């Protein structure tokens, strides 16, 4: 037994079978009626008449039967769709142009929304993520100390539970070749706060932390369990090597859980009290109590349902001030609570750029819609006869409105399907760019999921309303009797011009942002670096993960540098503290006399570092490896700083004033820009890294010529030197620098793509309007020419139409886009949002587009001969 709706649906899709049955039944009924009359002795003509009378209106019976048999509204829609498809097949150029412009608009939006969704809108996969709040301190300090969190745990328990986390890559080994795995060092309430369950085994708790030096245990992610341990059930209790130390796996975290930062997933959680395995120089320094002096833990609180964020903020601030006073530290700090549903995922890097790109692509979609509206309005005007005819033979205005709207919807459907395909391509491009700054972006599962599809459905629906309503209304109106009349077409022309003006105005925003981002990119890529980035490569390698600490670590680096120096093709090698990218530590120096303060970057480097970067010693000398004194030694300053600090006085042999102490300057070196180009200053102070006790340095190598072909040799040299220490990264400085502004590259590339697209759409819209206006006015032009109008008059006629639209578009577009580009300020470099040059170039591009796209219609207008005017209907 099939339900009624299904049988009606089937009948709607296959109306013929039902129609035949109806035909046969009526025929046989009439025959039977006639036969009865005939049997009463009535003539066959008369009998048939009587039969028909008894039966009633055959047509009305058929109509009622059809209404019962099928869904008539759906049937009409199917018929309209078939008709629309035929229409589109007749004008493939129009159809392709319309679908492609919609596809690019919708595709760009879908792709960017998938990023915004993954970066900004995703929550940690934990219960009630909205209860989580990230703790920040007003001073902008990176994190809290372990002892501080312990204090909160003890005295702030009525607020909720607290977790602290320090992300760190660790070397992980099942006994063979170690590999780098992202991990987190965590506090005891980590899992309790997140309310994560164990997939297998147990999770970490306070007892693991409180044991002397912490229990050597860890929890691993389901992913690591599956990929490295094959999902084996005996993984619980198994011993693995983390930074060469044995650790026992006590549990597997719930499937899908990979730590507190979605942009940097972690696969292992380790008790923070095992710090000495990971940062031996800090943890083993007896003069330095890392528990209360190392402010390195990112902190999250899960508030109880009865506690408000402001209450928690007040109490935590009070607790922290008390604690800071106890520790004799600056107590002027306030704890701030920020939404923590997304964990520590930092969107500062990418959130803003992708949001900007999403905004720009929405504007491009608006332009595409306005463009489609113009094109469709022209088509409706051209089809006025068809609509009038349909109305005359009994079609309803509603059906004509519906028909035109269905045509628009059909375009949107094709555009959306093509758009989703385009979205994959656009997302790949963006991924390729962002991958260089944030490799973890691959972990985000950026893709076209149900949320993205929902968003696409919404924007596609809104698009249909935007570009489909006006043409449909126009068609329904045009279908009034005797309406090819001038009044209606003039209204249509006005609407079309309005849409073109809107396109021009909107394109200002898109083209101006493209110009600003292009300028930003140009400034970044032409900066004087002070070295040849392709000739230098940076090696991130941490002997601590191979089990070396303190003196052994420094020896490891020295021997590695010596080994590298003797490698063929290598001209120099040296080390520095921390990656060059981060530009060292910010420091403040006082002027020798007076109140003035200088900001500079403090970089700890080994002797030979400056030579490795090809910097010139302008005065004094480089650090001396033989210099073994235990004090801090001297500083080397950059030329830029020397000039502003010493005002032309001799720098070498002079001193810098730092915290009231005079630190001697041993040399002046040519400027080297650090790889963080954006806020990198040229004021740098170098200190000798050999004076510091550290177990984590970056090694730099300068090659004779490009380093790229030498990278495998370098890798092999390091492996031969110590196979047990994995290389964290080995890239040329060129790659590293490009990585730092890949976001800007993505912004520049995509915004220029969007800008070009906007200009093409404007050109297409204007061309369409002018061409249509030309066909409408052929007669007028013919007559004007006949009565003596000169080509200049004809040109004026059309040029003025185009120029008025340009002027109106500029008038609206410039102030609006100038207001909007203020939002881009934080993403720009070397150029302000209201840069007059950028605005001028942008206006020039748009004006050129308008002029170029009106040339062809105007030239055609000039060739119209008076005779042609007569042939126009």
């Amino acid at each position, binding site marked *: 037994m099939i339900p009624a709706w299904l049988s009606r649906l089937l009948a709607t899709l296959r109306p013929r079978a039902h129609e035949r049955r109806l035909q046969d039944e009526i025929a046989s009924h009439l025959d039977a009626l006639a036969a009865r009359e005939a049997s009463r002795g009535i003539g066959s003509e008369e009998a048939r008449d009587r039969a028909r009378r008894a*039966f009633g209106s055959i047509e009305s019976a058929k109509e009622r*039967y059809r209404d*019962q048999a099928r869904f008539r509204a759906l049937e009409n829609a199917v018929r309209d769709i078939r008709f629309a498809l035929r229409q589109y097949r007749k004008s493939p150029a129009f159809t392709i142009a319309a679908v492609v412009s919609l596809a690019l608009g919708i595709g760009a939006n879908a792709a960017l929304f998938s990023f915004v969704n993954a970066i900004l809108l995703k929550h940690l996969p934990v219960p009630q993520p909205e209860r989580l709040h990230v703790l920040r301190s007003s001073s902008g300090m990176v994190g809290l100390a372990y002892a501080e969190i312990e204090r909160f745990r003890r005295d702030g328990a009525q607020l909720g539970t607290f977790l602290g986390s320090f992300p760190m890559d660790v070397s992980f080994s099942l006994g063979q070749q170690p590999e780098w795995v992202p991990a987190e060092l965590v506090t005891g309430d980590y899992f309790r706060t997140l309310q994560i369950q164990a997939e297998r085994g147990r999770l970490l708790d306070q007892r693991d932390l409180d044991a002397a030096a912490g229990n050597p245990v860890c929890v691993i992610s389901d992913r690591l369990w599956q990929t490295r341990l094959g999902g084996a059930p005996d993984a619980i209790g198994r011993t693995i090597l983390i930074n060469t130390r044995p650790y026992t796996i006590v549990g597997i975290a719930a499937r899908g859980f990979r730590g507190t930062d979605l942009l940097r997933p972690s696969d292992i959680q380790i008790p923070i009290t095992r710090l000495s395995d990971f940062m031996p120089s800090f943890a083993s320094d007896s003069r330095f109590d890392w528990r209360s002096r190392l402010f390195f833990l990112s902190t999250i609180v899960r508030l109880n349902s009865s506690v408000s964020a402001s209450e928690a903020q007040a109490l935590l601030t009070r607790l922290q001030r008390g604690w800071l006073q106890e520790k004799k530290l600056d107590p002027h700090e306030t704890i701030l609570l920020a939404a923590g549903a997304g964990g520590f995922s930092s969107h500062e890097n990418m959130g803003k750029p992708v949001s900007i790109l999403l905004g720009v692509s929405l504007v491009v979609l608006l332009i595409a819609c306005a463009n489609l509206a113009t094109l469709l309005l022209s088509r409706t005007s051209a089809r006025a006869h068809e609509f009038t005819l349909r109305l005359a033979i009994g079609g309803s205005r509603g059906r004509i409105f519906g028909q035109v709207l269905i045509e628009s919807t059909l375009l949107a459907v094709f555009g959306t399907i093509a758009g989703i395909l385009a979205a994959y391509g656009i997302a790949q491009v963006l991924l390729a760019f962002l991958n260089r700054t944030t490799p973890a972006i691959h972990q985000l599962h950026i893709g076209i999921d149900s949320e993205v599809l929902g968003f696409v459905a919404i924007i596609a629906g809104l698009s249909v309303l935007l570009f489909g309503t006006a043409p449909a209304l126009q068609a329904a109106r045009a279908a009034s009797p005797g309406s090819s009349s001038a009044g209606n077409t003039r209204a249509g022309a006005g609407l079309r011009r309005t849409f073109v003006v809107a396109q021009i105005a909107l394109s200002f925003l898109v083209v101006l942002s493209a110009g600003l981002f292009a300028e930003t990119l140009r400034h970044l890529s032409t900066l004087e670096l002070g070295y040849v980035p392709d000739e230098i490569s940076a090696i991130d390698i941490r002997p601590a993960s191979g089990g070396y600490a303190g003196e052994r670590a420094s020896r490891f680096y020295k021997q590695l540098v010596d080994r590298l120096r003797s490698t063929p093709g290598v001209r120099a090698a040296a080390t520095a503290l921390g990656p060059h990218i981060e530009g060292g530590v910010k420091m403040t120096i006082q002027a020798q006399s007076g109140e003035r303060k200088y900001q500079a970057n403090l970089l700890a480097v080994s002797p030979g570092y400056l030579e490795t970067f090809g910097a010139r010693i302008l005065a004094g000398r480089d650090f001396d490896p033989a210099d073994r004194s235990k004090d801090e030694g001297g500083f080397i300053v950059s030329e830029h700083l020397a000039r502003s600090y010493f005002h032309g006085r001799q720098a070498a042999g002079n001193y810098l004033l730092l915290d009231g102490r005079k630190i001697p300057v041993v040399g002046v070196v040519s400027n080297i820009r650090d790889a963080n180009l954006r806020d990198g200053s040229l004021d740098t102070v170098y200190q000798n890294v050999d004076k510091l006790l550290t177990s984590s340095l970056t090694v730099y190598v300068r090659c004779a010529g490009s380093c790229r072909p030498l990278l495998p040799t370098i890798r092999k040299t390091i492996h031969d030197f110590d196979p047990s220490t994995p290389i964290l990264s080995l890239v040329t400085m060129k790659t590293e620098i490009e990585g730092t502004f890949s976001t800007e590259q993505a912004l520049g590339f995509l915004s220029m793509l969007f800008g070009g697209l906007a200009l093409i759409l404007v050109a297409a819209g204007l061309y369409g309007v002018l061409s249509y206006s030309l066909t409408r006015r052929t007669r007028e032009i013919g007559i004007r020419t006949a009565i003596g109008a000169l080509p200049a008059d004809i040109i004026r006629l059309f040029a003025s139409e185009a120029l008025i639209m340009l002027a109106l578009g500029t008038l609206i577009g410039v102030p609006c886009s100038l207001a909007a580009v203020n939002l881009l300020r934080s993403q720009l470099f070397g150029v302000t949002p209201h840069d007059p040059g950028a605005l001028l170039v942008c206006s020039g591009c748009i004006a050129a587009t308008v002029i170029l796209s009106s040339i062809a219609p105007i030239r055609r207008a000039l060739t119209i001969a008076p005779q042609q005017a007569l042939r126009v209907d």
Partner: protein
Amino acid sequence: MPGKSDILQGTLDLMVLKTLETLGPLHGYGIALRLEQLSDNMLELNQGTLYPALLRLEQKGWISSEWGESENKRRARFYSITKRGRKQLRAETANWERFTGIVTRVLAGGVE
């Protein structure tokens, strides 16, 4: 026009079901004929309106139909009542009786 009355909405369904229950499988013409006879031509029935009604009953699953041959060797579609149709008929009959009962009582009351 006294004597002839319009068919109340829904009553046609009831009469068709009853006819099919009493007489067994029947074609459209036969049903029309039967209704005409029983009502002594008192019903204003355009026979053509029977077919949308038959289709509706069939879609609801109360009757089924198949092609067959009529008494005078013609191809005709025969309708027969289904199990669900019988159930529906019983329910509708009860409804109808209750309804006519109420109407009769009201009318009787109006006379007093």
